[in-house]
């Protein structure tokens, strides 16, 4: 156990830090700090990704031949830490490079890989993942988007939902149903698609948080070539599992204010008897949040160590979102309640730039997106602890005959 850098890691960190210092300065000089969700912000993000790719800091663990850094998982962690400190980070590429492109690399033919991997690494093209559907939800495999073979093409009709970044993505991986007579998991097939096709329509979803970060995506007679298929016909579920496994490995940072921010808020806030930070009940909560946050951070590190040693990491990392989403909701609510009546304010007057109020409205989504608390617990129970699955009434039944209440 060594939470310090080894000499070679220290050297890597020094080099990365030096590069980041210079690169971030040059980047900011050129792009400023554009507002999120603007074309300027996207342009800056793409420029930064290209800069990283040039220097071997994009997709650090991928081989150099596809544009990656040819480095180790620990180097990837080190760079991530330093990039965080440098204050330059964009979220547009996470899903594409963390989930979609790895799936393409695993299942596409050589030409397709050559065509797509390198541009994605350089930030030239952005990918999204099209799995969830209104009727599906937690039950992803219940999807109904149909793909019907027509000569060398497939014709796709249906609807996806909760697609992050569909509106700014260039390509997507799309899970479809190609056989309604097969049992649910056996009639699926995966494709990559061009998101700019006229037969693809994105409609942003208005969230309870007020934002529109996700989309509904409609397909109306979208035609794709059979060469766009990823994996065999009917093997879509197996392909999707690879995507979702990569989702677990995509190491995510924290999604909002944490113990540090709420500590600072409490330090500044008047309580009944000195600063709110003096309150023992708050202090105990603060300790719990710190301990859980550290626990998650080091659990991710343990995953990296397993990867470094050539082992397959277990799904320990699934514990991350269960803890962090619930903690964000509790922490944000505590911070808001601590302000008293003033906590209701969300505009320019709000304490801490309304960060806690925003998190309060965002946290319920975090508990659902990418697998609800309940689904993640099922996954851990079954895959980590080896407990039996739920009694399934939808196995070995033709998809069209499964009860749906409609």
């Amino acid at each position: 156990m060594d939470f310090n850098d080894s000499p070679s890691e220290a050297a890597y960190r020094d080099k990365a830090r030096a590069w980041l210092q210079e690169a971030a300065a040059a980047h900011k000089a050129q792009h400023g700090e554009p507002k999120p969700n603007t074309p300027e912000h996207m342009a800056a993000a793409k420029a930064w990704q290209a800069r990283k790719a040039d220097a071997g800091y994009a997709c650090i663990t991928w081989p150099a031949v596809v544009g990656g850094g040819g480095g180790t998982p620990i180097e990837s962690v080190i760079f991530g830490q330093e990039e965080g400190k440098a204050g330059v980070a964009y979220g547009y590429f996470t899903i594409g490079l963390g989930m979609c492109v790895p799936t393409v690399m695993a299942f596409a033919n050589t030409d397709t890989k050559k065509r797509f991997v390198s541009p994605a690494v350089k930030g030239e093209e952005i990918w999204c993942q099209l799995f969830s559907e209104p009727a599906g939800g937690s039950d992803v495999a219940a999807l109904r988007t149909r793909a019907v073979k027509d000569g060398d093409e497939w014709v796709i009709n249906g609807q996806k939902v909760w697609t992050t970044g569909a509106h700014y993505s260039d390509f997507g991986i799309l899970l479809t149903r190609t056989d309604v007579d097969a049992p649910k998991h056996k009639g699926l097939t995966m494709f990559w698609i061009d998101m700019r096709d006229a037969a693809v329509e994105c409609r942003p979803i208005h969230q309870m948080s007020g934002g529109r970060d996700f989309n509904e995506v409609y397909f109306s007679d979208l035609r794709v070539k059979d060469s766009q298929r990823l994996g065999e016909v009917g093997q879509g579920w197996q392909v999707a599992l690879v995507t979702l496994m990569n989702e677990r490995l995509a190491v995510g940072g924290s999604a909002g204010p944490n113990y540090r921010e709420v500590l600072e808020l409490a330090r500044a806030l008047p309580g009944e008897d000195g600063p709110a930070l003096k309150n023992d009940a708050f202090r105990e909560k603060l300790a719990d949040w710190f301990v859980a946050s550290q626990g998650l951070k080091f659990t991710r590190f343990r995953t990296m160590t397993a990867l470094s040693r050539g082992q397959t990491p277990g799904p320990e990392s699934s514990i991350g979102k269960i803890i962090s989403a619930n903690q964000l909701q509790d922490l944000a609510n505590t911070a808001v309640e601590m302000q008293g009546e003033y906590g209701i304010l969300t505009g320019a007057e709000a304490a801490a730039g309304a960060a806690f109020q925003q998190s309060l409205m965002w946290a319920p989504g975090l508990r659902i997106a990418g697998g609800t608390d309940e689904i993640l617990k099922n996954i851990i129970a079954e895959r980590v602890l080896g407990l039996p699955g739920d009694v399934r009434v939808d196995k070995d039944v033709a998809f069209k005959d499964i009860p749906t209440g409609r």
Partner: protein
Amino acid sequence: MDFDYSDDQKFLKDEARKFLGGRCPPAVVRGVLDDPAKSYDEPLWKAVAEQGWLGAAIAEEHGGLGLGRVELCAIAEELGRAVAPIPFASTVYILAEAVMAHGSDAQKAAILPAIAAGERIGCLAVSEGPGALTPSALSAQVEGGKLTGVKIPVTDGDVAHTAIVLASENGKPGLFLVDLTGAGVTRETLESLDPTRGVARLTFDGAAAERLGPAGEGFDLVQAILDRAAVLLAFEQLGGADRCLEMAKEYALGRYAFGRVIGGYQAIKHKLVDIYVKNEVARSNAYYGAWALNASTLKENGAPELPTAAAAARIAASDAFWFASKESVQVHGGMGFTWEVDCHLYYRRSRQLSLVAGSPRLWKERLVSELEKKNAA
């Protein structure tokens, strides 16, 4: 001993539910939510006034119906269930109750009939910034009957006619009635977690202020006012929590995953039971609070049970509504996170109701202080 609504009260409550079902469907709530220019629904406010609810607990001599506080609790429960976007709490639970408890005869005669008639909206202006307001930090000042200072945030302050303002006079905290439509008052509507209720910054610059209750006892008076309001707010919270449970249950019985309704999975079943358990604890504490509130209005010196009962009712109801509103989103899954589904109306209102009259943490401290005294005695 009798631990439930009477048949008459149940009838009133059923009628209130029917009335609000027609006049205050979610579309009316959304009308206020989606329109930044609206802080409340005026037609609903007028209709509620016509029902006599604004004066339900106001004596007949002051133009009210002269009903008891338990009847008012029944109405509050239904308003909470409907997430009614009107300044009912500020006007009825706070201004009317405060004037009835602490006002002079002249103040009662001036204010109560106007409230009952739907012509007077109230608000309570205490907060001056984030965190606790201590006597030494109080900056609003009254001198020679003129109020100067800033209050932020003031719930319903953007639409109210009359404010109860905490301010110091001669170096001591007192309560003052201020006509917000008069000179020396500037108001600014602010953005909030629950746009279905108005919130404002009130700036006073020599506004006319008239003392409410005895001089120098401002903080104690605020607490006495909040003790009463807490019980009534607890019923609003309870009504909201019950509706969240219903919505979640309905969704869980209609939504299929893996070929079964999700309401058949223990994770969902037990979550709904957890909501139910909290709601029942809240209901029982609220009933006791209703009795103590009503008893306090019938006796010369109030009911000794009220501070403890009000605190317990508020703590239980705040906990129940928060839990029900957030877990109802969770049961609804992705749909629950959308703007179009009503879960977030309740999620927002649960925050509004917890923040508006002292956070649960403060009420817990108050409760334990009372228990400490009681046990020591």
